[in-house]
């Protein structure tokens, strides 16, 4: 039996609904239909009056969740696509994210963002929003890359008292399989070295972890040992694990699927440069999507985001320095 990434997300929500009466699910087409990606399939029948179809009102969905959290609930809000959370941006960054600092009362909401590109999805169903949300104080931003993390990090996200932006990668939903959801259950905020190496460090998160591992596999044929760090959580950012890896390898490439201006990879490179400049044997590198909207056609899309080929190319340049 194998478990997919989306199975894990659905299972986590089932566990949460079963074990915590404060949890409810609110989102578009998530009740009878089971969600655009079936992340809530069957849950409305299993848990009557706990799983609700919402109107197409991203702003009000988050506003409602914030109000419910003030009154003691633990809402999980499904954005149909991460891209649409831009409509809820105000409620997320101004209402939910500022609340604890201003009032002393945290807002325990979890916002699930089906993120990242898939072939043919185009500019408005493909975005990676983690860097934007991480920029704002008061949010925890998670980017699970494995089946086990998808399950455990969602459970842990709901247990946190703070608002969590949970970025699930749509490409991983059905492509990524594991034998079980069991794992090491690292706490939120801790990165994981998923592949040890000594010649260069690739820091990645979400679907890019898998692209980085593919690139590392190819370079291994030439004798290069590439260490891959899965950030898991982009905020808080586990810079200690990254620095420890760079201390071993002396070389850093940060890979992300988001747009190239600023963002998570820029933060990683900047923090390593600031705190670990003496560890670097080469200028730290970044690889991101291109600075255009995410294109529709699969050929354009595949060339828009980092691929094993482009990661290999960036690593060879880094290793040759």
């Amino acid at each position: 039996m194998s478990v997919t990434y989306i199975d894990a997300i659905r299972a986590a929500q089932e566990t949460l609904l079963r074990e915590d009466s404060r949890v409810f699910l609110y989102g578009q087409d998530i009740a009878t239909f089971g969600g655009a990606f079936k992340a809530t399939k069957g849950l409305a029948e299993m848990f009557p009056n706990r799983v609700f179809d919402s109107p197409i009102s991203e702003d009000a969905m988050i506003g409602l969740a914030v109000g419910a959290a003030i009154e003691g609930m633990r809402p999980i809000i499904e954005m149909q696509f991460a891209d649409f959370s831009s409509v809820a941006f105000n409620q997320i960054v101004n209402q939910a994210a500022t609340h604890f600092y201003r009032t002393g009362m945290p807002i325990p909401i979890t916002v699930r963002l089906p993120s990242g590109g898939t072939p043919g999805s185009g500019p408005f169903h493909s975005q990676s929003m983690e860097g934007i949300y991480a920029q704002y104080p008061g949010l925890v931003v998670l980017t699970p890359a494995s089946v086990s993390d998808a399950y455990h990090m969602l459970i842990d996200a709901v247990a946190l008292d703070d608002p969590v932006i949970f970025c699930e990668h749509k490409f991983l939903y059905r492509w990524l399989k594991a034998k079980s959801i069991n794992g090491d259950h690292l706490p939120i905020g801790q990165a994981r070295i998923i592949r040890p190496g000594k010649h260069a460090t690739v820091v990645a998160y979400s679907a890019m972890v898998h692209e980085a591992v593919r690139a590392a596999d190819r370079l291994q044929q030439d004798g290069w040992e590439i260490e891959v760090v899965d950030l898991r959580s982009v905020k808080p950012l586990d810079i200690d694990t990254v620095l420890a890896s760079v201390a071993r390898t002396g070389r850093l490439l940060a890979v992300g699927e988001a747009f190239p201006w600023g963002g998570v990879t820029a933060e990683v490179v900047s923090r390593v440069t600031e705190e670990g400049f003496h560890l670097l044997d080469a200028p730290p590198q970044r690889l991101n999507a291109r600075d255009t909207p995410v294109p529709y056609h699969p050929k354009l899309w595949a060339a828009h985001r980092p691929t094993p080929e482009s990661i290999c190319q960036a690593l060879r340049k880094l290793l040759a320095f």
Partner: protein
Amino acid sequence: MLRARILENKLSSLYKAGKIVGGVYLGRGQEAVSAALGSALIPGTDFFAPLIRDQAGRTAFGEPMLDCTRTYLGSVQGPMRGRDGNIHRGRPKSGMPVMISHLGSQVSVVAGMLFAKRLQGTLDGRVGATCIGDGASSTGAFHEGLNIAAVEKLPLVVIIANNQFAYSTPNHRQFACADLVEKARGYGIGGMTVDGTDLLACASVITEAIHRARAGQGPQMVVARLLRLSGHGEHDDGFYVPGDLRQGHYGRDCVEVAMLQLVENGIATVDEIFEWQEQFAEEVQRAVAQAQQEEPPDPYHEDWTALSTRFPLPHHPPATQSFFP
């Protein structure tokens, strides 16, 4: 409403004397609407999300005057501890969420508070209310919030104080319907209008709206027509308000109208009203003096964290997980 007027007159003086940083935003001219709402709500049971011009409603709902003076004067002992100021204050644990500046945003928040109570099985007999202005009625958040409350059939009362100017923008640049209450029909919710300068009319109409919501008739909208009797804030003299509006029916002062109504209806005597004025002025003086004597926040002792969770979290390696459906 009299207490609020006297308090706000003092805030205006403090601002003009340079004792308040940021801004001061008065509810002058809106006290009848706001007080009628605050008085009709039940503290400890109902929810109230006040907005910028709701000092009277806050007071009627039970907000301590010190919350106001401490927040305006930056005392670390206030509910916002110097982290936010002026009208951005509240007590979310006591049913009074804290406004953000983005208009219309509180509508869905109050809806969510009520939604939580429904899930917890304790919604019966409870209502939630918020006040907004004519300008906020143009926002997407207002639309989404009212629609979601209507879809969920929540006991939400939204008061639109149509004070005819959103900052400086007049109604005809804000909306194109004849009256904002027409929007209620579009949402499938109750709608009523009232003369916002008439305290007794406000008390009657707003109490009825709350009664209908409490009785399970779903969201209710009340549009109160009035005129803002100050600028947007005390930095603004409101020069753009035409003289004929100031001289017209809605330019009358609701506090003066209310005093007359109380006397004419035998609810209070002139002497009693004078006594109240003296008593409230003393209360205001005490609340200002106390807040002024208190410490401001100390940046060297501020913890500068926006999260309640303290990272890094400890690692608890799992026992073998067996659950999988």
